[in-house]
């Protein structure tokens, strides 16, 4: 356990700790481009140079291990001068096209220039070496080699995390640039992490391109519902529109976020998002649709069934269970879902595509119900006339329900999700618009947060259920999400 002092403060760190990490423990920030806590050390950008007493030259804090008795200075004049010089080098050939660069506002060059340099360039624009401007480098990424500072974070990410090794530094010296094989696309399923990793505007997201300025975006921490892994994310939004999802690194689940997960926000503003209900494919306000649905339920008395969904929150599943028990007053309901769970690709993607299979177990524990097998058998048996469920969960019993010609009441957010044969399609708020509890494959209980407002008149699923019950003559008193969780034992 070496003991050292950094800027006059002493700290003891485990052997093998680098100066950069040791400084971090003291809350001292050392600027860096190539260093990334989850990638191997490269030491190529030279931005983290610090002064070590008795060392003949400045050393890179990211690659120098702390040693007993070291006296490190991170803000001496010599260090500050080195940072100015390194920035000058990095900016020699930089195009300074910040006004049209998506990275502006979250750019390492801009930030450190303001922090450490503020010096006028000594190089003429016409002397700059021009490199290739933007081109698509895959389905999600734009590559602008002119803005690149060759930190190689992207190269190491592809080599060490996805192990696909698409990228390399080609050529040499001031002619070098990042490239991949001609004709090959950067489509390893995690490519958008490179846009996050890239400290400058070399790799930017094609999806986010020119959509919003980084400094206008509000950040709401929430979770990704793309699969059972349940990664922590941040939704970046502005004036009621989500523009991108980025990972919120945490020890339990994720440092990164997969491309599939990042695109899940698209459904919120998709063209087929339901702002009204559908009865026999015709758009209709929610209230009359609920009255209509209540009437059909009344007609089918004793022959109605309710199926929960591993794509819905615990609250919404609980509301459906209450609907079955206390309003429809039937024992024909099922909250029994199981799927093989675990990381599929060694990084993040789960074998179970549903985000809340584990969460439905708590609903089942409290309310019981049929097993999925029994429930499917019941549907196939022909005694059931009407089925209430969520669009994706319907997929699990589709064959049986179709064969028996059952009338379908489907909860869906987008028209494309709902089966064409549905009698009624009831819209509800997406989990970017309302809170919901989800339990991931490890049993971690996490909440979504409302980043944006739902379309006008659209309510959370539990509230829609509450209303449907009251039209059917039963008050469930589900007036808030926590009320839906009443008696729930986590």
């Amino acid at each position: 356990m070496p003991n050292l002092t950094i800027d006059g403060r002493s700290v003891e760190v485990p052997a093998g700790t680098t100066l950069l990490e040791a400084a971090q423990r003291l809350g001292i920030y050392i600027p860096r481009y190539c260093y990334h806590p989850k990638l191997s050390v490269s030491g190529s950008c030279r931005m983290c140079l610090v002064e070590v007493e008795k060392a003949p030259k400045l050393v890179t804090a990211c690659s120098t291990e702390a040693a007993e008795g070291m006296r490190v200075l991170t803000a001496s004049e010599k260090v500050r001068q080195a940072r100015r010089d390194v920035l000058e080098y990095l900016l020699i050939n930089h195009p300074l096209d910040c006004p049209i660069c998506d990275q502006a506002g979250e750019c390492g060059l801009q930030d450190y220039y303001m922090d450490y340099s503020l010096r006028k360039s000594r190089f003429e624009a016409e002397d700059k070496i021009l490199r290739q401007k933007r081109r698509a480098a895959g389905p999600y990424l734009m590559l602008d080699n002119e803005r690149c500072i060759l930190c190689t974070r992207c190269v190491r990410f592809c080599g060490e995390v996805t192990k696909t090794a698409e990228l390399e530094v080609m050529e040499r010296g001031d002619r070098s640039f990042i490239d991949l094989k001609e004709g090959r696309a950067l489509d390893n399923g995690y490519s958008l992490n490179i846009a996050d990793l890239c400290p400058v505007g070399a790799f930017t997201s094609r999806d986010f391109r020119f959509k919003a300025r980084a400094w206008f975006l509000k950040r709401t921490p929430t979770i990704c519902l793309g699969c059972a892994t349940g990664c922590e994310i941040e939704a970046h939004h502005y004036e009621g529109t989500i523009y991108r999802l980025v990972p919120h690194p945490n020890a339990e689940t994720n440092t990164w976020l997969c491309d599939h997960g990042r695109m899940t926000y698209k459904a919120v503003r998709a063209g087929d998002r339901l702002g009204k209900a559908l009865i026999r494919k015709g758009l209709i306000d929610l209230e009359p649709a609920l009255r209509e649905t209540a009437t059909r339920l009344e007609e089918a008395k004793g022959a109605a069934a309710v199926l929960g969904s591993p794509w819905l929150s615990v609250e919404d599943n609980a509301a459906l269970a209450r609907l079955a028990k206390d309003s429809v007053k039937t024992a024909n309901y099922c909250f029994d879902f199981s799927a093989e769970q675990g990381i599929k690709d060694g990084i993040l993607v789960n074998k179970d595509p549903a985000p809340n299979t584990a969460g439905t177990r708590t609903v089942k524990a409290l309310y019981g119900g049929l097993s999925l097998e029994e429930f499917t058998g019941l549907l196939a048996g022909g005694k059931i006339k009407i089925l209430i469920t969520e669009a994706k969960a319907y997929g699990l019993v589709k064959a049986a329900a179709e064969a028996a010609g059952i009338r379908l009441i489907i909860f869906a957010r987008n028209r494309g999700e709902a089966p064409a044969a549905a009698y009624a399609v009831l819209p509800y708020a997406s989990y970017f618009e309302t809170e919901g509890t989800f339990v991931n494959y490890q049993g971690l209980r996490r909440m979504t947060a409302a980043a944006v407002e739902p379309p006008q008149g659209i309510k959370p699923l539990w509230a829609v259920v509450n209303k449907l019950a009251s039209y059917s003559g039963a008050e469930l008193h589900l007036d808030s999400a926590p009320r839906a969780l009443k008696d729930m034992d986590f």
Partner: protein
Amino acid sequence: MPFKLTEEFRETAARIRARYPRADAALIPLLHEVQREKGYVAEEAMDELAKFLELPYSRVKAVVTFYTMFNRAPAGKYHLQVCRNISCHMAGAPGLLARLREKLAIGEGETTADGLFTLSSVECLGACGAAPVMQVNETYFENLTLEKLDALLEDMRHGRLLTGAKEK
């Protein structure tokens, strides 16, 4: 023309590979071997080598493009490689390059129509003490002046200069 590693090459390659503890260590010697055989390292050769050594293609390409010693296209009979690094630069390399461009009427990276000359500027040749230096195929010509360069060109034009592998 699809490139295939010949059985003969595979044998040599396996022998070279066995000398090193790791596959990537054998990459440069094998690239030299390809260049010796074909005169240059083609894209397809990079692909084949990557498969042979179980390295990513990008790694092979990065190494080939880093070193100016590897030709990525067939070169002329005489490959003129003028050092552009600091010692040679200060000792007059830019003048040599300008003279060659003018006399051969080609730019760097280009080959004359008769296939006789290819002109390149290259990184340090490790002969700074004798700057400026030009390497022609495998042979160094040191302490060059414009006059010496003109004489050399004449010799090459008349086939009076032996510079290594090419004049077999």
